[in-house]
């Protein structure tokens, strides 16, 4: 039996006004991408003005922890996609289980980030140390808040599945998943810009 998403009884709509997960979440995603994009723009503009400072400041970041967090977030994105896949097949039990795994990796991301922040604070690398660390704390802190909000959304979603309302359940889950993946998208741009290019 072919279990590809294309075989489920409610196909993904492709109208302009109805992207996967609904219009509102995609407007949020666009605004968030703009916001973080402007933050990245500030990072490279200031980086051009003070290249030595940015190079020496970036050397204090732990690339291995950043890389690990990227893999963790990619893993959580995969688990979330699996959850949507099973929800589309009508298997809400499995969908919930995959949400649980997603949350575990989300919690791991938060734990690694907290460890990294503790290291930075212990070394005295605070927000007003220099412009690089101002942007580092702002961008990664704002992103971390989004991850935590995403986890809260997923917890609420997993408890709000209603029997007999499959289409509504899937639509809500796809919206929540889009928010979660947005955290992936933002991190995919933040990680190289902060940890690798300087």
């Amino acid at each position, binding site marked *: 039996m072919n279990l590809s998403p294309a075989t489920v009884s409610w196909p993904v709509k492709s109208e302009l006004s109805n992207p996967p997960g609904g219009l509102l979440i995609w407007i949020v995603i666009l605004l968030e*991408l703009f916001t973080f994009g402007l933050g*990245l723009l500030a990072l490279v*503009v200031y980086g051009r003005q003070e290249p030595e400072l940015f190079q020496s400041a970036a050397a204090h970041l732990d690339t291995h922890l950043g*890389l690990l967090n990227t893999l963790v977030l990619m893993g959580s994105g995969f688990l*979330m996609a699996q959850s949507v896949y099973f929800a589309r097949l009508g298997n809400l039990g499995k969908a919930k289980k995959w949400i649980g795994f997603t949350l575990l990796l989300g919690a791991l991301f938060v734990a690694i980030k907290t460890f990294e922040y503790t290291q930075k604070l212990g070394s005295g690398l605070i927000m007003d140390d220099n412009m690089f660390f101002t942007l580092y704390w702002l961008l990664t802190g704002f992103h971390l808040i989004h991850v935590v909000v995403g986890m809260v959304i997923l917890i609420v979603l997993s408890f709000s599945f209603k029997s007999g309302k499959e289409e509504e359940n899937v639509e809500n889950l796809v919206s929540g998943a889009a928010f979660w993946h947005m955290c992936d998208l933002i991190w995919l741009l933040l990680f190289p810009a902060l940890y690798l290019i300087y």
Partner: protein
Amino acid sequence: MKNAIVFSLLVGLTLSTGWIAQYMEMGRNLAVLVMALAMVKFSLVALWFMELVHAHLFWKRTILFLGALFALIVGGLALAA
């Protein structure tokens, strides 16, 4: 199955990015390569995990354009520094 393939690609690209940044002496070209790889990962997540592949062309174009724009700005300005 396709999710697993996309995930494998993402892991491979992420590890490659880390390896290139750590061990290859590319100077300022590193920024361009690293941001190009980030854009490939961005596209995979947006198109497949976020199901943008099934969405209207407007959404595909807008999200991918934004991602490419910021990746280009970061890579380009770092290269020109």
